[in-house]
């Protein structure tokens, strides 16, 4: 026993030393146990029962809904739901609780009286939010991967139709009178090929008539990428969304003066007096990163916004805000001094605050702090936290958990402007092309990549310049992104541990038994072929499967496939992995291909990016079908 302890101490010391050089090595020792007992609750969203007595907490980490006494915080009941729940809502009468389970593509229907699961319904790809219509007939489910709103029969769960929404459809909100349903989305809508890859992102609020299940309007959100919760006043005259306004088209030469991101609201409705207004939340020297949840007081006097990256809640005086809006007809989203005119408080809460809910009288505000497993209760009169409820879970904060906290905080960037999760929303990607500074201004425009299941895909960066995640996330991030002292060695090891732990999401295009459809199988044959349709041998380096080899679809080497542009310093690019490739449009290093098909039909005129010009459109479609299974 003693010897074992000594060995453990020696190992720990070795790991610690190694971590200084190679965070990947330390990760081996820091791998967390996967036992269910050690899962953190990770509260993501909160709801109150109609009588205000019960607080429903959506625990994403443990796949549960926990029902708490809203006054005391005592747990009344725990209800198991599907995997990685992301959103939930109560039926208008409070009798049913609907939970959107994002990773098993279901909605759990819970009887709130008994606390029992009454049904589990299939609900599209990656359900992220769910709302029932006022009549209790239709259930609307926002599907992040499906980019749509699935409309289910609220009694049987049968899918009635789907409505096209923005890319990464994720959050739904019903107007108080039940006449309109609003949907937001986390990835910017794709631009057209004519617009090119250097145009501002654009998002939308999809407005739906919930009675007829029709999209009636799309409110455009210019310059916005990353739209989260939406709130509406009870009188229906004021609405707003929490959102991120990236500055991806300007070279990222420095961070101060809002150079990387702006954190804003878009405010709309009759009170605003015009279609919509973008309202900044940041200040000159301090930023309030990743606005996520938003709530409007019942009397409309105050607006509350959670900031997932800054661990606080912003309090806005609605009257002052509207007065400022009316006094400033010109856009003021770039004015970092504007928020002083309407923000009245910033209230510190727990780590990574997300969902929030106000008591019916507006006196108490409950905030779910996802990454420290607490619920902050704020007195809206005192504008301070009066109670913090800790949810049951592991006492010890593991390396993995610390890494996740590091990933989601903005505190390491200069003036707290942004964190990893700004560009990797919910640990994925952002759908944007960035102009990073060191390569020169306007040069080496790079598309952001998904960061799931990265082990075995090294090196990193499109030029393959970083052999390890430690290099990718350490000095490079500090010097060229955060522009401020960032991670110490342990924090970097924790962060790498977390990123390496991110699994690939379930592939919705591949059958559970692994069998391919005929089209997918034809595409697989094309992918692996060595002879073209003319009977000519395809040179090894011109076969799909040569560069995109191995289980993750990358040979981990760089090639010149003829996709370099005049603004690129080199035409050699790291071979990107293919996992979940169907989700990560646009394509190529600079995002110039809007679809998989465009890679070959537009950007491969000389067959340098694989031999494809002998293929028919149907055959290219087959190839696309196969790639979607990766």
């Amino acid at each position, binding site marked *: 026993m003693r010897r074992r302890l000594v060995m453990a101490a020696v190992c720990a010391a070795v790991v610690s030393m190694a971590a200084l050089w190679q965070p990947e090595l330390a990760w081996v020792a820091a791998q967390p146990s996967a036992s269910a007992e050690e899962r953190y609750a990770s509260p993501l969203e909160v709801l109150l029962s109609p009588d205000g007595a019960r607080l429903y907490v959506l625990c994403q980490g443990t796949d549960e809904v926990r029902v708490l006494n809203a006054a005391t915080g005592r747990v009344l009941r725990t209800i198991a739901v599907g995997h990685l729940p992301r959103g939930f809502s109560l039926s208008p009468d409070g009798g049913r609780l609907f939970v959107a389970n994002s990773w098993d593509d279901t909605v759990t229907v819970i009887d709130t009286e008994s606390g029992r699961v009454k049904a589990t319904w299939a609900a599209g790809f990656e359900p992220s939010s769910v709302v029932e219509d006022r009549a209790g007939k239709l259930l609307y489910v926002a599907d992040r991967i499906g980019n749509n709103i699935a409309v289910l029969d609220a009694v049987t769960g049968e899918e009635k139709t789907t409505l096209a929404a923005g890319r990464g459809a994720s959050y739904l909100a019903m107007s108080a009178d039940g006449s309109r349903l609003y949907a937001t989305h986390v990835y910017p809508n794709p631009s057209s090929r004519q617009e090119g890859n*250097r145009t501002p992102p654009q998002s939308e609020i999809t407005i739906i008539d919930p009675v007829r299940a029709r999209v009636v309007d799309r409110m455009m959100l210019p310059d916005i990428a990353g739209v989260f919760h939406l709130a509406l006043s009870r009188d229906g005259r004021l609405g707003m969304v929490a959102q991120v306004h990236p500055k991806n*088209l*300007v*070279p990222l030469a420095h961070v101060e003066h809002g150079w990387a991101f702006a954190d804003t609201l878009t405010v709309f409705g009759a009170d605003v007096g015009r279609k919509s207004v973008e309202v900044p939340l940041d200040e000159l020297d301090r930023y309030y990163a990743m606005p996520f949840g938003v709530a409007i007081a019942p009397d409309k006097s105050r607006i509350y916004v959670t900031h997932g990256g800054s661990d606080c809640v912003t309090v806005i005086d609605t009257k002052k805000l509207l007065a400022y809006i009316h006094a400033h007809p010109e856009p003021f989203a770039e004015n970092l*001094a504007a928020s002083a005119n309407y923000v009245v408080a910033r209230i510190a809460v727990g780590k990574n605050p997300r969902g929030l809910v106000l008591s019916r009288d507006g006196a108490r505000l409950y905030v779910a702090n996802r990454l420290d497993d607490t619920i902050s209760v704020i007195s809206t009169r005192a504008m301070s936290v009066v109670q913090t409820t800790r949810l049951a879970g592991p006492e010890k904060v593991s390396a993995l958990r610390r890494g996740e906290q590091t990933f989601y905080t903005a505190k390491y960037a200069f003036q707290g402007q942004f964190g990893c999760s700004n560009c990797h929303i919910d640990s994925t990607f952002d759908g944007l092309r960035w*102009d990073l500074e060191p*390569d020169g201004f*306007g040069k080496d425009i790079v598309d952001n990549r998904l960061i799931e299941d990265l082990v075995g895909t090294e090196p990193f960066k499109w030029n393959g310049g970083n052999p390890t995640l430690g290099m990718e996330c350490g000095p490079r991030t500090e010097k060229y992104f955060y*522009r*401020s002292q960032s991670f110490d060695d342990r924090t970097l090891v924790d962060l790498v541990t977390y990123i390496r732990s991110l699994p690939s999401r379930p592939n919705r295009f591949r059958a559970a038994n692994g069998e391919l459809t005929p089209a997918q199988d034809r595409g697989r044959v094309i992918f692996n072929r060595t002879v073209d349709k003319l009977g000519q041998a395809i040179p090894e380096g011109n076969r799909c499967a040569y560069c995109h080899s191995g289980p993750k679809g990358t040979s981990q080497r760089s090639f010149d496939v003829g996709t370099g542009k005049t603004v690129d310093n080199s035409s050699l690019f790291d071979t990107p992995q293919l996992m979940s490739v169907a989700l990560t449009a646009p394509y190529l290093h600079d995002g110039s291909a809007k679809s998989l098909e465009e890679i070959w039909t537009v950007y491969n005129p000389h067959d340098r990016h694989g031999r494809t010009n002998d293929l028919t459109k149907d055959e290219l479609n087959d190839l696309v079908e196969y790639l979607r299974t990766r």
Partner: protein
Amino acid sequence: MRRGAAVAVAMGAASLPALLCGLPPQPASHVVHQQTQAVSVIFTAAPMYESLAALHGDERFPQGAQLMVLRDGRTQALVPELAASADASVSFDAKSVLFAGKKHASDPWGIWEVSAQGGAPRLVLAGATDLIRPLWMPQGRMVYARRGPGGFALESAALDGSGALKLSYLPGNFVPDDVLRDGRVLFESGFPLGAGAPPEMFLVYADGSGVESVRCDHGAGSANQGREHGRQMSLDSKAAGAGDIVFAQGGRLARFTSALAAEASIAAPAGEYAGDVTEMPDGHWLLAVRGSGRKRFALAAWKPGAGPVAIVAQDVSRDLIEPVVVAPRAVPNRHPSGLHDWAFGNLLALDARQSRSGALSGVPASVRAETLGTDGRVLSLGTAPVEKDGSFFVQATGDRPLRFILLDAEGKTLRQEQGWFWVRRGEQRICVGCHTGPERAPENRVPQVLLRTTMPADMTGGPASAAMGGGH
């Protein structure tokens, strides 16, 4: 602020019992403020204090100065073996003090270090000219002002005096005030930078890049009497006003706060304040102030927003100024320098038409860059086109004075920068417009100049001496 300025209104706490100190050091008669019993305070005592003298290249303490320490209700000289001492800066762990000192009265000011508990001082850095206002920086470095032919320049060095790095590249006087929590150096100089007289506060990164005004409301507030001796209030990061820069403005206190683009007044009790406000662990401020009918600055404690000041120490024959509290504080962030190994810097303007100065009288067609020769003459570095969206992209020699003049199609001046700035060698910098102010964030669009070319117009005045390289 001028020495001897009259103070019209009596200080609220001036009648409170005071702690006296004089030359030679005398035992304290009474400690007024509770907080000073809990922490030690070091300050400068000087028979004559010319607060702005350094900004004119002159001596601030023409009759000498002495660092005093107030500890356990007693004051005594911190380094009695030196002929002069001033400008105390306490290390982040509160164990050590950097200061400007002279062993002999005829020596130039040098930089010294002494234990916060006292003892023999150590000469850290000396030169043929004055070195003043040392401040601790992260990573075992310090920043200070070195007197040179063109005035006081900002410089940083390791604590053994090695690795000196110049941070200012204009003729003029640049005096450090504080090192902010974000790692930037807060300094004061005349406004417009390199060309003006009224003191103003500026910021620069620890590698000399990114020089800019803290705010661009120059001259606002109080008849342009200038801002001086600013410090960041940051001991309790959760306190209201944490991170604010508090400074003296014509004898009153004012602040820059994160949310505002212009200075905000501070409702402090009437009196004339000398700046260099320091914060005690309980949130009280320790400040140098003189009240009605008094010629000398005394040290006083004040809880912002609450009641009168309470005199902590005063001396009938000396000004008591530059207080610092001997208490641990957070180490500012280290600045990871991203300077490239180039002899030049690249500058991109997103829209030169934009300015706090209002609309242009014509359409800018080109921009001319100018520098200063060693003889002080203005030299043209050439012109570059301005795109229709107001953008331009130029390459200029690093570490030299620089300014831009917008020209119309006929070459007439549309707008000219009032002062000068510099770009460091290897720096790449972007501005939203010409003097838009730090409150103006960029729009998210590709400037037209980058759609036309990614090569900056050469304004180096000659061939650049290093090739572009890098990668990250």
